């Protein structure tokens, strides 16, 4: 009974409800018009139509789960910061639930603010930047299943897209383009420098990231998430490929632009980096998406290294997956709130001189494990 069948059932029930109307009309109206409504009823009830809407409902379910997780992440981020910094964090907004409504209030407030487009800014780029940024992040989310039967599937027996991990990383890596576009098009010196820095940072951390992911593919022997996670049945990949897991986390911190590698929006030098000119809902999108990418990063780390939903079955599978994603996110936040920011050239030479060789060494370890036949 995977997610697809569940959505298929719901849509089927809804369509039956509506078909009573069509068929009634078909009977009442004479001749060709009646025929027409009967055909509409048949078309609606056809398998193809229902499965299309079922997939749509699946996507909505996954997106809603992601948004709830993003709101949770923002709340955890601020509360955890509070605990590390000796103060409460959000407290009075949503008083009885510990300030959880604070980020909801932030989002709605940004939604209501006036939208300002700078006069000399390039209108198209200014508009397109956030859209690509948000779109690519949500697309990366589509292919990550939360459980064996809880992912975006297109048929009752299907277990997800064959190359889902590849697609997830592909979409995950589109973000630098949108940052460059929005940085350049908002016609501001700070955002230009911020945009260029972030592109340089992401490029230099993309390659070690993908090398470690390649080592996981090598051991798991398959490109899709379900294949990888099944391969981690008896032992999580984080244990044999510990070096790979550490390199992956560091690259993830750089990809998601969190504190030690927070350079594009460096508070102190570049006054917010490439989001300087964005106000109102566009800035809200940027802020939400940076946390969404945190969630996707956490999900990828759990799927590849921490054996996604493998765990004692007293807890349902998706909950296992989310618990591990939250733990990875908290580790990233811990680094975020305790380390100072690194300079641009230091970022690049860490990326090229330190992480690249480690990733290659990790690939060799994976190769030796494979040839020894342990995996």
């Amino acid at each position: 009974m995977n997610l697809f069948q569940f959505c298929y059932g719901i849509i089927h029930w809804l369509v039956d409800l509506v078909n009573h109307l069509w068929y009634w009309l078909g009977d009442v109206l004479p001749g060709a018009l009646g025929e027409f409504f009967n055909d509409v009823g048949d078309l609606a009830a056809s398998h193809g139509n229902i499965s299309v809407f079922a997939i749509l409902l699946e996507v909505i379910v996954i997106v809603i789960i992601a948004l709830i997780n993003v709101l949770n992440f923002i709340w955890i981020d601020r509360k955890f910061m509070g605990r590390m910094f000796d103060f409460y964090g959000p407290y009075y907004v949503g008083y009885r639930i510990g300030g959880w409504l604070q980020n909801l209030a932030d989002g709605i407030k940004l939604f209501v603010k006036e939208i300002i487009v700078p006069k000399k800014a390039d209108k198209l780029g200014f508009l397109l930047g956030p859209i690509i940024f948000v779109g690519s992040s949500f697309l990366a989310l589509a292919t990550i299943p939360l459980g064996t039967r809880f992912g975006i599937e297109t048929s009752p027996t299907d277990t997800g897209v064959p190359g889902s991990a590849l697609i997830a990383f592909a979409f995950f890596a589109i973000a630098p383009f949108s940052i460059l576009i929005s940085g350049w098009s908002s016609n501001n010196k700070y955002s230009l420098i911020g945009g260029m820095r972030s592109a340089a940072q992401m490029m230099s951390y993309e390659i070690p990231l993908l090398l470690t992911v390649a080592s996981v593919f090598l051991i798991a022997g398959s490109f899709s998430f379900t294949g990888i996670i099944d391969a981690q049945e008896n032992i999580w990949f984080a244990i044999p490929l510990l070096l790979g897991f550490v390199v992956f986390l560091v690259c993830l911190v750089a990809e998601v632009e969190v504190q030690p590698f927070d350079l594009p929006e460096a508070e102190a030098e570049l006054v917010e980096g490439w989001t300087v000119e964005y106000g109102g809902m566009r800035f809200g999108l940027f802020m939400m998406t940076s946390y969404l990418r945190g969630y996707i990063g956490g999900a990828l780390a759990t799927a590849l290294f921490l054996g996604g939903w493998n765990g004692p079955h007293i807890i349902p599978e998706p909950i296992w997956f989310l618990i591990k994603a939250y733990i990875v996110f908290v580790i990233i936040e811990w680094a975020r709130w305790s380390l100072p920011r690194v300079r641009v050239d230091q970022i690049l030479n860490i990326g090229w001189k330190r992480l690249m060789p480690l990733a290659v060494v990790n690939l060799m370890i994976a190769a030796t494990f494979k040839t020894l036949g342990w995996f």
Partner: protein
Amino acid sequence: MWINMGPQHPMTHGLWNLRIKVDGETIVDAEPEVGYLHRGIEKLCERRTYTQIIPITDRLCYGSSLTWSHLYCLTVEDLMNIEVPPRAEYIRVAAIEMQRIASHLMWLAAYAADLGMLVGFIYAMRDREIFIDLLQALSGSRLTYNYPRIGGVAHDAPPNFVRDSLRACDYMEGKIAEYEKLYDGSKVFMMRNEGVGVLSKEDAMNLGVTGPPLRASGVKYDLRKDQPYSIYPELDFEAVTHPDGDCYARYRVRMEEMRESCKIIRQAVQKMPQGKWRVLAPRIGPEGTGLGRVEDPRGEGMMYIVGNGTQRPYRVKIRSPIFVTVSAAKHMLLGYKVADVVAIMGGLDMCIGETDR
């Protein structure tokens, strides 16, 4: 390409503008521009009587306002050559050293926030509150104290002032050790600080840099030791220096100075004699000039007052250490990256109130 780190910028703590000429990421030319907070204090002082000027000098440098009003009172006492009772001297020195620790902690908070370490900002702010409470017990206000008077201090120290300050010093020494673990232990902090913004010994002396940046370049010159005023000769402490002269050296000098200040507070508070804490000063100032020189947490603060026999000073000239250190900013910035501007300028502990007067 000229970048304008303009008046409204998180890195500039206060209102000044640093125009940098950048080619790629390295800085080719720098031009600090001050004057956004110029209130014409020297003109205001000429319209006020001697005691009315004390609250104005409090607002010169709001990070360490006690040292400036103390400097003003020293200068006027030199002008009127008034003998300050010993108890007032001891209370003043204890208060000044507490103000020095609070000012260095405020610097540490701003410096850590600039480098991205919000943890440092929060811890330094939290521990500064202890000394702010002590100074509030003394003078009644949090930031601009209006506490020294010409010829002594405004009120006596509260009853358990000695116990509280000893307890604060012990707490602070533990905290400084913790900070050193937090900062020196973090590799990223060292990467951002070592070898950045180097100022050689000759340059520092020639450019008129004073205070922690000068001692960080290896010059052993501390006004409390070399040109002692009030009761510093009777207290034993030593001037802290560091050979390198880069951002890390300035950070190191300030942390050691906080330890020294704790030592001074302990001695001053325990040796505090009983007796009068204030002598009434005449309202009419004599003809002639008065000169005061004090080791401000930011450098060498000086004041030169010319009296002309009326109630109001004829001319008040204030020497601000940061005004001269900023003019030397260009020599520290050339050749470094844009991201280093934050570390270098943060290392100077800018206080714009005293720069623009």
